[in-house]
């Protein structure tokens, strides 16, 4: 387990930012999300954990509608998620997303990756976009790699660029879909540190991860999912030291003691 310790601060909840109400989704016969109710407050860091196939990635992807839902409602900053088209694109620009497999645009340089959304979606002028991109790349520690192509970077560097690309849009909330699962062990920390910093800066974050260390140190709340349901929600200390459900106890015993 990766332990990155950080002074955790209690973020005052200032209203609900992301609200999921009785969300259901099926993949064919598989009921992957079952009556999910989840509310995330502004500035809150929520870590979603659970065994694979529990629906946690799907949950993360429904929030910017990369996955559609069958029933229920999702609202972001008071507005229900639009169906398709321009409205949806606008909403997605406000919701940053970081993928397990980075998904940097392979034919564009690192700098272009971070500038593209600003120019094409936010209609920023080129100079401002570049300035902001360089600042963000410096902030995530890859400023010197700006002119390289993604394939020339290590996984950890690519993922940090992906975070910068999402931040360049000035998102209200950031979604992380297993951001460190595809990384070599020695590169996990550099990505987690960037995420810790973001959390300290007050970004609202929903993080699907297997990094229990990150969950302990940076999360305000841990959401434990299994078989398409939210089984348990608790503060990290309470969850890890004293899980209430048997399913969570079983899961924790498997990952923490080996």
């Amino acid at each position, binding site marked *: 387990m990766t332990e990155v310790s950080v002074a955790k601060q209690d973020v005052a909840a200032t209203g609900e930012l992301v609200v999921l109400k009785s969300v259901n989704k099926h993949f064919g016969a598989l009921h992957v999300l079952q009556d999910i109710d989840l509310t995330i407050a502004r500035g809150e860091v929520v870590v979603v954990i659970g065994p694979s196939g529990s629906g946690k990635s799907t949950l993360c992807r429904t929030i910017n509608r990369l996955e559609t839902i069958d029933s229920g409602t999702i609202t972001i900053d008071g507005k229900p998620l639009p169906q398709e088209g321009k409205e949806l694109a606008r909403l997605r620009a406000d919701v940053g*997303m970081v*993928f397990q497999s980075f*998904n940097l645009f*392979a*034919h564009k340089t690192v700098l272009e990756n971070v500038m593209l959304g600003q120019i094409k979606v936010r209609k920023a002028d080129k100079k401002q976009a570049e300035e902001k991109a360089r600042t963000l790349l410096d902030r995530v520690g890859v400023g010197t790699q700006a002119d390289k192509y993604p*394939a020339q970077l290590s996984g950890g560097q690519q993922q940090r660029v*992906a975070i910068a690309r999402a931040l360049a849009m000035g998102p209200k909330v950031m979604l992380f879909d297993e951001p460190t699962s595809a990384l070599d062990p020695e590169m996990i920390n550099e990505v987690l540190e960037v995420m810790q910093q973001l959390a300290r800066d007050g970004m609202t974050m929903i993080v699907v991860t297997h990094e229990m260390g990150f969950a302990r140190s940076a999360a305000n709340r841990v959401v434990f999912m299994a078989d398409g349901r939210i089984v348990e929600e608790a503060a990290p200390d309470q969850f890890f030291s004293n899980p209430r459900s048997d399913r969570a106890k079983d899961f924790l015993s498997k990952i923490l003691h080996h």
Partner: protein
Amino acid sequence: MPSPYATHPEAREIVFDFLEGYDVLGAFWMTVKLTALSALGSLIWGTLLAGMRVSPVPLMRGFATVYVNIVRNIPLTVIILFTSLGLADIFGMTLGASDFKVQGFRLAVLGFIAYTAAFVCEALRSGINTVPLGQAEAARAIGLSFSQTLRLIVLPQAFRSVIGPLANVLIALTKNTTVAAAIGVAEAAYLMKSMIENEAQTLLVGAVFAFGFVVLTLPTGLFLGWLGKRMAVKR
């Protein structure tokens, strides 16, 4: 063996004197013009078709699918004859041309574009399939629209991966332009036909034209092959 031309300079004239009085270069220039315009047009139309084939709008998808499957299965000769006998003679579509030659040229280009675009579309679609889904997801996740995602992220990567197959389409198109002879466009094959009728050295006439086409297509293929390797997207 010493070259016969060295000892008998007049031999060259004797061997190739059947070329006299024919504008072979002019005929090949017509081939080049047909190819270039058709290539440009079919690249544009083929790209639009490919965009439609992957679009979320069922009507567009349906149209492009039907178009490709009909057009690529009709012999090119039939398409070219139809442009002349059908479009021009029956429907009076002259494409703004006043004389017959220009009209034939324009109709032929139209036919080649319609036909070749189906193949460009399919090559491009296979290229789109090589672009990982995550690229489009990441593009949508930063708020790009469907058409922006296609134009800025998916198609540029797709094009790079199908330069080789597109080179094949271009080579086929170059050779296919000979079909324009069927509606009287004075390109290489048209001239070849009349030369074979009038000259005794039929084999040589054939060889000259075959050589001419190789000169056009071989460098194209080599260049695009090199370009394809150079432009390949590293993942």
